[in-house]
């Protein structure tokens, strides 16, 4: 039983990271109707920035905040420079744009920081959390920061005018323009926020997977799985999907014979395909009540 609880809690902790990645993916998907394949690489690059800042002597939390700001501005810059000109381009052109962005960021990171694996610090330490052997302080910190982020985002989208404008622009761009919302900037803002959320995921998972240019590959696939499971149109679903995928991944690795570490990733992919076959809109996909 202790093994079970332990695995579930560890699943929730990594699930928090998948939830962040899923949320970042959903955010851009809502704005432009495409999956950002480069979301993981953007997060990885941000994590390297924070590492570099710490190498230069900045304390952890200062580097953390500076990286959030850097990522936010970087996300907006990527949208303005690369994707705004592609707004009306066919879908394959956009996909090519995402793949280009993926390899550009990946190669740049390799060029600047090389491909050797680096240690990444945790501000929470890795001792047992509150004396319990079930979960470490870093894992508890991952969960805590994610929950803070979620509550913050909820209030932003429900109770601020910018949040309302962003939702309107994502739901009905033409109507949004007709009430005076600059939808183009709302999309850019969505990119900035997605990049910042992704950077949080990167900085929190880096102590676990270690820092290197390919660190986010697996994490992004789990993030996609989470987003698809919860429903690409539902931020709430994406978050819940993240936690579910995290738990599922750990339990499958523990209890299904021969799964082990090597087979965990195919399980995420199998999950994506099963959801798409059985319930394409995901668990919480949009079911708009509509009267004709």
């Amino acid at each position: 039983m202790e093994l079970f609880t332990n695995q579930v809690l560890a699943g929730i902790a990594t699930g928090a990271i998948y939830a962040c990645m899923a949320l970042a993916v959903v955010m851009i998907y809502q704005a432009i109707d495409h999956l950002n394949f480069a979301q993981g690489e953007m997060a990885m690059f941000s994590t390297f920035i924070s590492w570099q800042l710490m190498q230069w002597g900045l304390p952890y939390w200062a580097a953390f905040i500076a990286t959030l700001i850097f990522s936010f501005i970087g996300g907006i810059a990527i949208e303005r420079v690369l994707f705004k000109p592609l707004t009306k381009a066919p879908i394959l052109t956009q996909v090519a744009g995402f793949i280009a962005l993926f390899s550009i960021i990946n190669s740049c990171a390799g060029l600047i920081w090389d491909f050797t694996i680096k240690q990444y610090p945790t501000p929470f330490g890795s001792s047992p959390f509150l004396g319990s052997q079930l979960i470490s302080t870093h894992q508890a910190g991952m969960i805590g920061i994610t929950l803070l982020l979620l509550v913050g985002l909820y209030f932003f989208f429900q109770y601020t005018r910018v949040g309302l404008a962003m939702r309107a622009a994502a739901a009905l761009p033409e109507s949004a323009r007709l009430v005076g919302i600059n939808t183009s900037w709302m999309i850019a803002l969505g990119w900035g926020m997605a990049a910042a959320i992704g950077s949080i995921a990167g900085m929190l998972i880096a102590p676990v997977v270690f820092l290197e240019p390919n660190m986010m590959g697996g994490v992004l696939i789990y993030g996609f799985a989470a987003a698809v499971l919860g429903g690409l149109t539902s931020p709430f679903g994406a978050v819940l999907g993240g936690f579910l995928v995290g738990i599922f991944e750990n339990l499958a690795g523990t209890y299904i014979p021969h799964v082990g570490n090597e087979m965990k990733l195919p399980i995420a992919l199998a999950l994506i395909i099963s959801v798409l076959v059985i319930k394409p809109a995901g668990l919480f996909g949009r079911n708009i009540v509509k009267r004709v």
Partner: protein
Amino acid sequence: MTALLNVKDLRAYYGQVQALHGLSFSLNEGSLTTLLGANGAGKTTTLRAICNMVRSTGAIEFEGKPLNNKSTESIVRFGIAHVPQGRGTFTNMTVEENLQLGAITRNDKAGIVADIERMYAYFPKLKERHTQQAGTLSGGEQQMLAVARALMLRPRLMLLDEPSFGLAPLVVRDLFGILGKINRDEKVSILVVEQNAQLALELADQAYVIETGRIVMSGVAKDIANDENVRKSYLGY
């Protein structure tokens, strides 16, 4: 009276297809003007061209200021509220959120709160349903919401694209009554595009008839309604 909106030689294009062929008309401050015509005559395109939602040439002036080449969202800030065809309701948001979105360009918090209450007084049904998803409202209620959302801008000019579409006759009467009241009491100039010519002519004081992208008739609404030739050849009733 001074012209609030002046449109000269307006030509609009969808790709290679030209939809408007040199349309000219003007709107007086405080007037309630209707633009009539059959399906495909270019009524909707005219409204879309005013808000720069379709490629067009020609001069469009609002209070003497040119609107050409301004983006749709910045034209709203001149005080032009456009209720598009199909109402443009944010169906997965609440009634109240829809109203707040109508005032998204305004910064006077207290004024917005007061205006929402004012809208609820105009449309009591909306107050009853203010926490409900807008998509669950009936067609008539959604049209009321669309008008209320437009008014939240405190517009100088309101553009309405076929507000009667898909509504029961009684609901249409109700709605048109409210539009008349808004025009009189709130001093909002209104340009309404309609297929229901009879009703629109009762409501409006000025009318333009358009056919295949050209103005073919203009004048006082009452005169046009009384001119049997015009009615038979252009309005079909």
